[in-house]
């Protein structure tokens, strides 16, 4: 009883206090203002939450769909009762897709190629970017305009003669065309990387360089030991982008490397549909059934999907680990037009 009494008393006191307080506040303009502001803020954040959640859902939805389709049995695809959770989980689709794109050989090749291109691109573009930012000599501005030119000229325009050069030297069945392109700063969007490095090096304080010079560093050591570690953000960005773009690239690979000699994930996936009948037949499926299957758009679609997941899986796993670094670093780069 006493409990209830004291509780009631407290409530009354609180109500009185509250009422008196609110009276004060309602009469004062400031209170009105804060109330309006608060509701406005919460409503804005709710709307923002809705939009961001919705957009995230739209981005993730097809990826989830692809994953579900890849682990479910082929028969479940036509089953209208199956939504999200497959009736039987089978690795059959994954097996077919993996052999269709010759997964492990292609994965190895693609990995070697992408890592090689990444390292070489980093080397060339960082050097060039540093030269453009700090080692300026007469005529540098003109050269920099040429860099912008290489960004803007579509690679299709110069694709044919480029192919002819490498074909003439008999390099089109090896990785060398891509490595040479990377080394000479003509690879995939290499101009943009030079641009980024130039921007970042230019924004580093000059005092850093002067201090290094006074302490007896040569230009090479200043670059390697002082400037490059300070441009870590640009290094991360360039490495990631060159790796990912090379991994996903079709244009340069298709042009400069023939699939007959080298398996690459992106090229094999692009050719998956025409190859499917043969692969199914090779897997021991009856020829008529195999032909029927490879004419069914749903089956082909699912297998292409699964192959796509297999191709992107290493990227996805890598992204989970470096995502934080990536997002942070890119923001700090500060590309200015």
């Amino acid at each position, binding site marked *: 009883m006493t409990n209830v009494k004291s509780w009631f008393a407290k409530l009354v006191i609180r109500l009185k206090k509250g009422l008196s307080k609110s009276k004060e506040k309602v009469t004062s303009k400031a209170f009105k203002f804060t109330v309006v502001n608060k509701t406005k803020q919460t409503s804005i954040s709710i709307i923002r939450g809705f939009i961001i959640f919705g957009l995230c859902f739209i981005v*993730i939805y097809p990826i989830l769909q692809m994953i579900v389709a890849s682990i479910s049995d082929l028969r479940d695809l036509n089953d209208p009762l199956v939504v999200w959770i497959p009736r039987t989980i089978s690795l059959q689709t994954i097996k077919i897709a993996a052999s269709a794109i010759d997964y492990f050989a292609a994965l190895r090749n693609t990995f070697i190629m992408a890592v090689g291109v990444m390292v070489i691109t980093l080397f060339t573009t960082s050097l060039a970017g540093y*030269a453009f930012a700090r080692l300026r*000599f007469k005529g540098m501005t003109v050269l920099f305009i040429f860099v912008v030119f290489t960004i803007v000229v579509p690679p*299709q325009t110069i694709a044919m*003669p*480029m192919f002819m050069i490498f074909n003439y030297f008999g390099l089109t069945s090896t990785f060398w065309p891509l490595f040479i392109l990377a080394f000479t700063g003509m690879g995939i969007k290499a101009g943009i990387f030079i641009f980024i490095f130039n921007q970042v090096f230019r924004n580093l304080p000059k005092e850093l360089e002067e201090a290094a010079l006074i302490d007896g560093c040569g230009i090479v050591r200043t*670059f390697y030991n002082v400037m490059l570690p300070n441009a870590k953000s640009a290094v991360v960005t360039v490495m990631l982008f060159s790796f990912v773009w090379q991994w996903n690239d079709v244009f340069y690979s298709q042009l400069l490397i023939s699939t007959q000699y080298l398996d690459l994930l992106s090229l094999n996936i692009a050719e998956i549909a025409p190859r499917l009948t043969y692969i199914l037949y090779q897997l021991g499926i009856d020829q008529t059934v195999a032909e029927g299957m490879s004419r069914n758009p749903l089956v082909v679609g699912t297998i292409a999907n699964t192959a796509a997941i297999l191709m992107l899986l290493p990227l996805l796993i890598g992204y989970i680990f470096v995502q934080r670094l990536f997002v942070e670093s890119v923001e700090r780069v500060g590309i200015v037009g």
Partner: protein
Amino acid sequence: MKALTLKVKKPMSYDKQKMLFGILFLAPWLIGFAGIFLYSMIDSVIYSLSNVYFLGPASADQVAAYIADQGLVGQTFFKMGILFEFVGLDNFVYAWNVHSEYRRVLISSMVESLINLPVILIFSLLIATMLNTKFKGNVFARAIFFLPVILASEAVTIALSQAVDLQALMQGDSLGIFGNFQLNTLLIESGFPESVVEFLVSIVNTIFVIISLAGVQILIFLAGLQSIPTHLYEAAKVEGATPYESFWKITIPMVSPHVITVGVFTIVDSFLKSPVTSLIIQTKDNQQYGVSSAMAWIYFVAVMLLLGIFVYLANKGAFYYDDER
């Protein structure tokens, strides 16, 4: 005294050293630019003006025999196993007037990139502004938004377009597992007029495409937004500006130089992904080397035209914050 008598090798002056290393550091790029880029540009002009016969290594007599055999009338010359027959602008005329697809594909992809440009610009700016504010799950949302940058792969698009139209998958016809995104059915059942629903669904469907096209652009805008000095916002707040006003009066002008970068990137990127690319490669694979180069040059002129117009307009509207540092 001894130190004075020592012969000191006079070191190179710092400026000279700088220039030497500048050239050294630029050397790989210079070689690439002169040896591959410039060479290919000039070569591709020659290709586009001539018929190209791919002979391989051959002696002068063999070449002469081949010319007589084929009955080539134009001026010819032989280089690196390739025989060129000068035909003037024939290849351009062929690509533009005779080729069954080229003009249509080029014009449609130009129109498409013109339509996509403002959409992508506005969308990526809005998303960047939104991601730039602090809220719970900030990092998580950013990570998801940049997934399309990682996963945007032409190869996958090509593979899927061979099998089923990707759009059909997204719209979710009754295709079992693929057909469970029943937004439109749900909305129609709940009594919305069908035209409104269709409009909404079409927006939702294009959003995925736009996000996958706008990843890098969002990154550039985010970088731009974070480089805006905060004292501007503080001053505006003290003077009594609402967030809405400071967005229009501070954020937009400060971000406007980035619009050029983003726009140029968008135009170049959208052309790189357009069907024109595959058409040019296809023509090359059909041994029509001259026509393929001519197509590439027409395409180049089209891109430059769009870029020129865009940069001219954007430069007029851009605001440069004169921050001497």
